[in-house]
């Protein structure tokens, strides 16, 4: 097993319960592992939540952590995947002064080239939304920061796997 650290996307299917985020993040904290990003949302199954957690660790560590996550009573199933095995995206918002949009021609090109979307424009500011890989978002951030960014925020990674995840089947098996 590789002893080299690499990025893993952890997908955790859980019951929707207060406190579960604490329980899961504590498993990483105990081992002094930094969570790069974490996202919690509903999943494809009604009543089932899905955590998407990004960590940079060795595969050996990853396997042990998956075991400890799955051990939690309200966790249905946990998976880990490399970037090659998933389709993933991040999303971000930029708030920029509106006059720049008219005074700096370059900005319009940047927006066009980056496939960013203008969410809203008013007299004072406009808001730009961009989804994509982290590197694309970082590039856009670099380009816009030359002109000044009023506010910036980036979401955690969300991802789906190329392989099917058979959570529904597992839950059906329990019903029987």
């Amino acid at each position, binding site marked *: 097993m590789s002893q080299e650290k690499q990025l893993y996307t952890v997908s955790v299917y859980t019951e929707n319960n207060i*406190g579960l985020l604490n329980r899961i993040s504590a498993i990483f904290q105990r081992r002094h592992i930094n969570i790069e990003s974490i996202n919690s949302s509903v999943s494809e199954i009604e009543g089932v939540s899905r955590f998407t957690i990004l960590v940079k660790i060795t595969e050996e560590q990853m396997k*042990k952590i998956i*075991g400890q996550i*799955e051990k939690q*009573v309200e966790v*249905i199933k946990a998976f880990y995947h490399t970037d090659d095995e998933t389709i993933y995206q991040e999303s971000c918002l930029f708030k920029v002064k509106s006059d720049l949009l008219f005074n700096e021609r370059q900005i319009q090109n940047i927006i066009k080239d980056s496939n960013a979307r203008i969410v809203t424009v008013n007299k004072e500011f406009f808001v730009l939304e961009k989804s994509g890989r982290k590197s694309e978002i970082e590039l856009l951030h670099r380009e816009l920061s030359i002109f000044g960014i009023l506010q910036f925020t980036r979401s955690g990674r969300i991802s789906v796997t190329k392989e099917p995840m058979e959570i529904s089947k597992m839950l059906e098996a329990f019903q029987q």
Partner: protein
Amino acid sequence: MKETQTIEKTDIKTQVTERISGSEAVVRCLLAEGVDILYGYPGGAIMPVYDELYKYQDKIHHVLTRHEQGATHAAQGYARISGKVGVAIATSGPGATNLITGIADAQIDSTPMVCITGQVGSHLLGTDAFQETDIIGISTPVTKWNHQVTKASEIPEVLAKAFYIAKSGRPGPVLIDITKDAQFDEFDFKYEKCTGIRSYIPVPKTNTTALKAAAKLINEAKKPLVVWGQGIILGEAEAEFKAVIEKSGLPSAWTILGASAIPTSHRLNVGMVGMHGNYAPNVLTNECDVLIAIGMRFDDRVTGNLATYAKQAKVIHFEIDPAEIDKNVKTEVAVLGDAKASLKALLPLLNENSHHEWHQKFKDLYKIEVEKVINGDLNPTKEGLTMGEVLKEINNQSKGKAAIVSDVGQHQMIACRYAEFNETKSNITSGGLGTMGFALPAAIGAKMAAPHREVVAIIGDGGYQMTIQELGTIFQTKVPVKIVVLNNDFLGMVRQWQQLFFDKRYASTEIQNPNFITIAEGYYIKAKKVTKREDLAAAVKEMMDAKEAYFLEVSVEKEDNVFPMIPTGASVSDIRLS
């Protein structure tokens, strides 16, 4: 804020619902789960439940401990000797936080326990109200499951889940926090036991291929070694385990929590592994060709340095918790599942064997240990009393039938090394967490759960004073526990390490003790102190014969060390005899 649930009459066979308060529901749930005793301490936020305990006192016995930590250890002692779920109850804030040490202890030692805490009213949550603490947040890392109840109607389902989770699979502690308004509110009560949770697989399926592969390895082994843990006891697999090792003639060693699963005198029992375990099983761990681990978790106190642990051996791991597989030691074959079922299925696949030559190695090394360590411990010629000879005397007089409840430190290692066990569930000690103060309250719970058994607490002078207030519980309940304090006027284990690894700089380990006899007598407990060898046997006899609680203090040699010893970070085969 009244609950307005309508009576469900969909299933006539189940009991008709009844309108009761949340607090009465708590007690009714406990009764439905077969709880007849619980340990706790009242306070503001749990008063409604105590009011119901008062009404139901002919059906359920509440034991007032002198500190909430004592309640958890008593519940642990109760659970460890009986196999049933122990129950502890406390109020919010400090009452709840005082439970934490016991909960952490139960978590790491897989003890089934349900803790119920009162909480401030739900409208006050998060406002820094009087005696409010986020006990759910605090207890999350040390519970198998926890849950906060803010509505009375949730109580039956949540408590049913609590007992199911605490007891099933790999057991553990569960904490249920109930707001005061949820205790007062009325609702239509109906109780159904929990039989399953969709996200929770308590016992993983046993893979037949893995089982066959395990059998093949065991059958082909020339030098097999079994290391068993508490999984045998928790899984009530003692008979199946015995059948397996007897059929294949497997030398078997135990972890501290596995002790007593088979009798000490069993011909295949080769002793304890780990830091202060026996010489032979530790040394031969690094010589065996197949290591068969059953219901144990390769704790670092067992393995010493992992880089040099059993590297020559193929490891088979029988385990109920998938997260333990490959956690510390790489396995060749992992057999997931319940120990009782797995071992039963394994038995017919095994060949009969005796491994005579291999057994001889254990005997040879045992002889060395007897000469270098055991003789000096059990038959000392020096003037001072040894802890070992006290244990020997207790063995003699109890005929190995006593349940030994030990605290943490030198006396614990001596107790585990030398106590003779003839009955399972006889070694109750804080293994994983190493909680000083565990023994006195745990002995109370153990004796209450098994009144027919002799329960002897073996405690050091340090740990004794961490929960000494529970003498009050013993006095009030008249529970006839036998308490032995092995007093060396030192925090002995730390002192031993200071001697060996810190150039004898005895930082804060010399302890000035009070008059323990006066203290015991202050609680009206019979007490005696022994300082001379010639008085020991008579004093132990008087203690064992006593029908009521008894306190025996034995002054032992101040600076004795526990050997053998695997220094931290050393290999099991580098175990020191002196």
